């Protein structure tokens, strides 16, 4: 006897799986009534460009989260990579493409450091990435000696401030990374293995998956995304700030949770994360347009996270109890 999913379940699943997208639509409609400026092309592009850095960060976070891990050091790593990049270009006069390459490799190295400690000593990711968060932050202070780096060449600024066919370059970069990560998670063996580990690590190991390799893989991929985000951020700001990135892992968590990727791992809603970031961006933009005190944006972020988690928990529980009832009923019939 099998328990088939009914039509109403299908509709509900569709709704829940794409709730971030639906919320974005909903909010856009409301805000376009509240403010005439909102739905203009320039404002929309503005929003997307503003969230491009956090989206890149969040996409990397999604990869790590889907394996059942988390990287709390992404924020400060973002800042550190930005500083590394700026120093390479400005102080060491390294050609821009090479500087970017070195920065990305550096990011990947930092990611693998997290994985190394987690897998070798089997310490929970929470403590490890919290510790490396501090280490990266300190490294940024040391490297910069608390002095921001500005005066970066115009050619470099094109990445963060330029336009291609009328659309800001960061948006292209963001979309490219999103598509690549989507393909990784949904069409490759590596992605499938990541989801298996996140869903049930023991079962994944028994099925022949090398969980150590997966841990290295996700932290390195996540860090690569952080590195790319650092390039865009430094270019947009035309400088590397000493305190850049601090606290941005919270933005990532907010976006990912709202977007529908489970906190316990096992699934990866890549586009959901994108819309999650957009929601945060729209909320902030909307609050700006309405002239609200900008400090409310910080509160809004927290409220959004809670809201998303509550909806998730309530729907998950009701689904579980319905499946239980179905199972008991069909077992009784047998």
């Amino acid at each position, binding site marked *: 006897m*099998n328990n*088939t999913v009914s039509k109403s379940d299908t509709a509900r699943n569709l709704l829940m799986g794409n709730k971030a997208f639906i919320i974005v639509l909903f909010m856009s409609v409301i805000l376009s009534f509240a403010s005439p400026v909102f739905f203009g092309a320039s404002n929309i592009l503005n929003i997307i460009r503003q969230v491009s850095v956090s989206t890149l960060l969040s996409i990397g976070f999604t990869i790590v989260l889907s394996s059942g891990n988390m990287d709390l050091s992404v924020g400060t790593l973002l800042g550190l990579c930005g500083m590394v990049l700026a120093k390479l270009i400005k102080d060491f006069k390294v050609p821009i493409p090479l500087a970017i390459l070195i920065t990305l490799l550096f990011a990947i190295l930092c990611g693998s450091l997290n994985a190394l400690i987690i897998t070798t000593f089997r310490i929970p990711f929470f403590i490890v990435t919290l510790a490396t968060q501090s280490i990266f932050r300190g490294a940024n202070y040391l490297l910069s000696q608390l002095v921001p780096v500005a005066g970066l060449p115009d050619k470099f600024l094109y990445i963060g401030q330029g336009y291609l066919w009328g659309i800001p370059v960061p948006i292209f970069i963001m979309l490219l990374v999103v598509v690549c990560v989507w393909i990784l998670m949904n069409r490759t*063996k590596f992605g499938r293995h990541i989801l*298996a580990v996140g869903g049930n690590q023991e079962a994944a190991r028994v099925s022949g998956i090398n969980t150590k390799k997966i841990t290295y893989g996700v932290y390195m991929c996540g860090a690569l995304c952080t590195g790319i985000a650092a390039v865009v951020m430094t270019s947009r700001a035309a400088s590397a700030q000493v305190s850049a990135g601090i606290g941005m892992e919270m933005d990532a968590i907010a976006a990912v949770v709202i977007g529908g990727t*489970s906190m316990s791992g096992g699934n990866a809603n890549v586009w959901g994360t994108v819309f999650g970031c957009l929601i945060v961006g729209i909320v902030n933009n909307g609050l700006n347009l309405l002239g609200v005190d900008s400090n409310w944006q910080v509160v809004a972020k927290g409220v959004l996270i809670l809201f998303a988690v509550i909806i998730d928990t309530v729907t998950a529980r009701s689904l579980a109890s319905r499946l239980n009832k179905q199972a008991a009923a069909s077992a009784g019939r*047998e």
Partner: protein
Amino acid sequence: MGETILKMTNISKRFGGVAALSDVSMELSKGEVRALIGENGAGKSTLMKILLGIHQADAGEIEFDGHQVHFKEPKQALDAGISMIHQEISLIPTVDVAENIWMGREDKFTKMGWWIDQSRRYAATKELLDTLGIQVNPRTTVSLLSIAMMQLVELARAVSYDSKIIIMDEPTSALSAEEVELLFSIVRKLTNQGVTILFISHKIDEIFAICDSATVLRDGQYIGTHTLNEKIDNDSLIAMIVGRELSDIYNKVEIKPGKTVLEVKNLYSQSVFKDVSFSVRAGEIVGFSGLMGAGRSEIARALFGIDRYTSGEILIDGKSVRITSPEQAIQNGLAMVTEDRLRQGTIYKLSVMHNATLANLFRMVRLGFIDRKRENNAFAELSSQLSIKYGRKSDSINTLSGGNQQKVILGRWLLTNPKVLILDEPTRGIDIGSKSEIYKLINRLAAQGLAIIFISSELPEILGLCDKTYVVRNGKLVFECPRAEMTQELLAQHAFGL
């Protein structure tokens, strides 16, 4: 003996669709030592949990010390005078012996209602332990004690409740011969004081040594109660424990086995199993029977690389291999359906199809990208071969019934085209319809030349399917039995150690 202290009448309990207990009745007298015997799954634990108030019976009555009782939680049973020493140690390791023994009853030693007088507590503990003859310092932190000592502390705790009935679940599993004697002397002391002991154990020799009588359960049903004297012997006891009608849902096909595919020599894992040597040929179904905890799953997991083993040799097709991870095991042609489907089998967030293809993706990729057509085809063929019933292949796997989930896991391993298939309790918790389908499948696989290791606690299955069976007891292969000689009684005898 004397008056009745406990009367359980027509107790029934269902869990989901499974009847754990059907109409079980039992009567105990004051000062009696009663053994409760049965195979794994017979219903012993369930009956005890109902008595203690951990579960509630669906039907039936319990009369304790002359009153109708209906315990809704363990504390009520404890206060009424029924205590239990559980099979798993339930002491708190970070705290000392005295604190553990009096846990929950600290108000015996409090001053002004909240300050615990530790010296009084230690003194009371010392007195208790001395009376029982248990040599443990009350101030020792429990985590530093040996398992045997922990079991004795559990015993002391149960005694300290001044209960009228003490239930002991496998109380001697970690005890040496001397300590077992100590336990027995404590039991005799208690029964002289009119305490009733209910003794759950698989060790028949101990049961004969200390118990006055034995109640046998089988498949959730009450079989009988007999006084343990010369009239009852091992054989008739065994017959009561296992005696079942054998139906022929197994459809065994006699196959001429091919050459030896798997050979295991002197496999040894410290404190888990030793001297494990056996071989399996192509087309052969080799059974591993024995009681739960005997070490069968541990041997299988070591073979498959899930757990480490200390020493020994494993040969596949005559070649010696070193297996330290499931990945390596798969590469060497092994496949294993683990005992615990929920924890080590299904990945509930993945879809039905993805669960099925998980172990074989490495053969379905091109440059890292999954060939979706190959995946879909492989799954379609598999699901029709195994008759897996599901809604859509993209549905989450836990929308399937237990039997179908197990088929998916089985399918996962069949897709890897193994030489050796290890099945650990493959039909546990599955409806009879799916069970017979799985038996048919196992026969078909053997006919195709697979070497199959079949671990099961259900003797009818072993008898129905296996070409030869090893009985495992205490981590050793104690008996090898060819098909022609297999009987339930013979296998059970060696499993219990008679």
